[in-house]
């Protein structure tokens, strides 16, 4: 397998953000760092594109935001999962799991040729 970072599928970024925020409230930069860490740098978020995604999730009501002090004591915007966001995360995780499983099955099956 190549070590080149993978581009994200459309919609996947939303799921990753929700998952990241499920752990704790976080600001934008923190989210991008965390996604890279958790995926062992395999998934690389185009950092700037995080923000339209955050805006979209907030408009949908799945996350909410608040300005607060960051770890180095500067003003940063912190995002937090809402109750509907938690439900959404569960639903999307499930469907993601079903999809990857299905795709995996297909790929495994194709190895048999």
């Amino acid at each position, binding site marked *: 397998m190549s070590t080149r970072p993978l581009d994200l599928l459309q919609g996947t970024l939303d799921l990753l953000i929700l998952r990241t925020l499920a752990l704790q409230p976080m600001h934008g930069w923190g989210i991008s760092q965390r996604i890279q860490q958790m995926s062992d740098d395999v998934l690389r978020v*185009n*950092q700037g594109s995080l923000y*339209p995604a955050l*805006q979209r999730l907030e*408009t949908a009501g799945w996350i909410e935001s608040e300005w607060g002090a*960051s770890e*180095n004591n500067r*003003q940063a915007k912190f995002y937090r999962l809402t109750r509907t966001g938690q439900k959404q995360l569960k639903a999307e995780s499930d469907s993601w799991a079903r999809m990857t499983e299905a795709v995996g099955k297909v790929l495994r099956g194709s190895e048999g040729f």
Partner: protein
Amino acid sequence: MRALLNWWRRDRAERNLEAEFQFHLDRETEQWIARGLDPGAARERAIRSFGPMDKHKADAREARGISWVDELLQDIKYGVRTLAKNPGYAVLAILTLGLGIGANTAIFSVINGVLLKPLPYEHGDRLVVVRQSAPLSGQSTLGVAIAEYFDYREQAQVFDGLVEYHQMNFDLLNRGEPDRVSTGVVSANFFDLLGIKPIIGRTFVASDDVVGAEAVLILSHTYWRTKFGGDPSIIGQVFEMNDRPHRVIGVLPNVPHYPQENDVYMPVLACPFRAAAERTIPRNRRAFGGLSVFGRVKEGHTHEEAAAAISTINQRFTADHAGVYRTASSGFQATTVDVRSALTEGARELLLILLGITSLVLLIACANVANLTLARMLGRDRELALRAALGAGRGRLIRQLLTESTLLATAGGIVGIAFAMATIGMLTTFVSRFTARTGEVTVDLPVLGFTLLVSVVTGVLFGTLPALGTRVNLTTALKQGSNQAGDGSGRRRLQGALIVAQVAVSVVLLVGAGLLLASFYRLQQVDAGYRSDGVLSAQVYGNFSRYGNIDALRRLYLPILDRLEGQPGVVSAAITNAVPLAGSAPGTTRFDIDGRVTDDPDRRPTTDLRVASETYFDTIGIPVVSGRAFAALDSAESLPVAVINRSMTRYWDGTDPVGTRISLNRGETWLTVVGVVGDVRQFGLAQETVAQIYVPLAQSPNNFAGQVLVRTAGTPSGFAQVLRDTVHAVDPNQPVENIQTLDDLRAEALAAPRLTATLLSVFAGLALLVTLAGIGGVIATSVTQRTREFGVRMALGASRGAVMAMVLRQGLTLVAIGLAVGIVAAAAGGRVLSAYLYQTTPRDPLIVGVVAVTFLGAAALACLAPARRATTVDPLIALRTE
């Protein structure tokens, strides 16, 4: 709501986003520095991994969603731009709507001021007026007499108070100058009951209204401002009035006065007539039966209770004085009416009719603008199709059209407010002929709210119809290069329906206007029974303190007549007690004919008693039918005589009344009838004449308010100063008022019907014009659309005449359908006008016929230009287009 909030906060959202970006880049830079890069390189690295910042910003903005507010602003901007590109359409639409909205605004501001606003008094909704009537003897309102007022005041429990009011004209001597002032004579607690506080000084208190109290006056705000320049030191000043000094104690605030505007107010006992009458109550229970009585219903009591209480008290005193009231034959009764409706009942129906009419005019305006818009949309199909192709949904397109129509309607509303402000004075003067309550008519907040509402509803109304017609067929619209896009036939049907509706409504208005005009014409042609040309009239009311009885009055009037007849240019001069058409009501003096005395005194016939000097009938041109008029020989010492009018002769059952005797006082004295004169429409041109009896000035038993009449050889109005000088030569302190020609009085009597007819004619004319413009426009667009068809027809041999007839037929068919609908509607609705019609039935076939023919003719003319254009189509060119 959230969208509005987001829109409101969009600047903040942008700033927040930038701060977030900044924070992100700073943290990333710090991280790379920590990993050993120098600050410049670290920053560069951070920016690179962040990606294109502007794109992220735009994406974020889009993710927030474009709010409907942005879309609306976009629509408005776009709408203004399209309208500006088409100024002819915009101006026409705005003016049409402006007229419609303006007419409605003007009428509504009057309705608001007259019918809707609460009275400008404390607890105005609890104010009632006592209304007495005697329906069985035909008297719908009978003033309250002093003794009756006392009974109501003492016995009624449901009122905070009952107060009396009457109006008198007195001479107030202001530094030697006599000034005739209209004086409200009121109970001491009158102003307290209405909750009116003086702006300076005080109002009346109980001690002002006792025998022997100092005479005091309160000035109205207007009188104080105009006569005394608003001088606050007026309080305490003393003016001579009725030969007594009167001290000013207060000035009223600037509020409208009801039931009448007055210059000054005085307490009841200060009025010499009222005081004199009160002393005669033991002999005459109905003494001074001309009071208005107002009451304020106690909190917690209803108007019904008040009416019941007054009615009960009335029944009690009529039973106690059965001989006076004779309830069985007169039906004498009493109730209460709330003051606001009592003040406005004469105008209510007329105002509602006017509002109905202006709403119809507005409907026509809407239909017309809708039609204009439909016609314009033919040219816009490609634009709309293009926008649809670029992703605008049908809803979005409809919204765009609605925005444009609302923009137009709002602009129309602004024009309308200007129009209303310009015409409201005229309208108020008109309505003041029907109600006293016009002092509060203004274009104020509720009126502006009404206009805004009407504008928006209008915009939606005429915007929806064309918008519903937008079922744009993308492919055909874009493919065809011409104007044939969209659902043309559906739209044409819609246009046709709008034309039919417009014609129908216009016909209703035209028939209404025609009826009023015909009625006015007939009223104008009425022979009033006298000659009004060349006669000048003036009120010369002898001041009672110097001319307290009829002998004294004769000493004033006879020399005046003598001197007047000696003036060059005077044909004759006369004195009477009321000139025709001056707005008085007929008197009801009962009489007996010698030899035919009726047993039941209440069954005796009534007549209207007039005083006439010797030359009265000559001066005013009333013909003597039989017998003779008055002559010099009819003196105080000679045989008492009378002249009756033709209407009165019916009581002689066909026999000659001349030479017979009648009595006005149950046979105490007898008058010999010496002549019969023609009938005069004394009380209104539309009123049937009543029985009238004239007694000579020399023999008149009672004093009366004199009217001087002068027939001049030249123009009578130039004679006013001579008349004034002549009277002053006899008595320098005698006021001469209301100098008017009889022609003016007659014109005044026709003013209300003339204005009503004019107003409706203007509206109907507007409706006709707007409708004709609509018909012309629709036919013109239809001709343009059918250019090719006409070309084909003519290529196949159709004559120009045939094509022209086809176009005309198309237009006139619509008009004919509209006419039919309109005539049926007018026949059904004409009845609301019947109270305003004189000798004209609401279904007058002549008027309906004239309207129908006029309309067809005018519509044919409106269709003619487009029809001619259809015949000029060159078949070759027509076939080649497309």
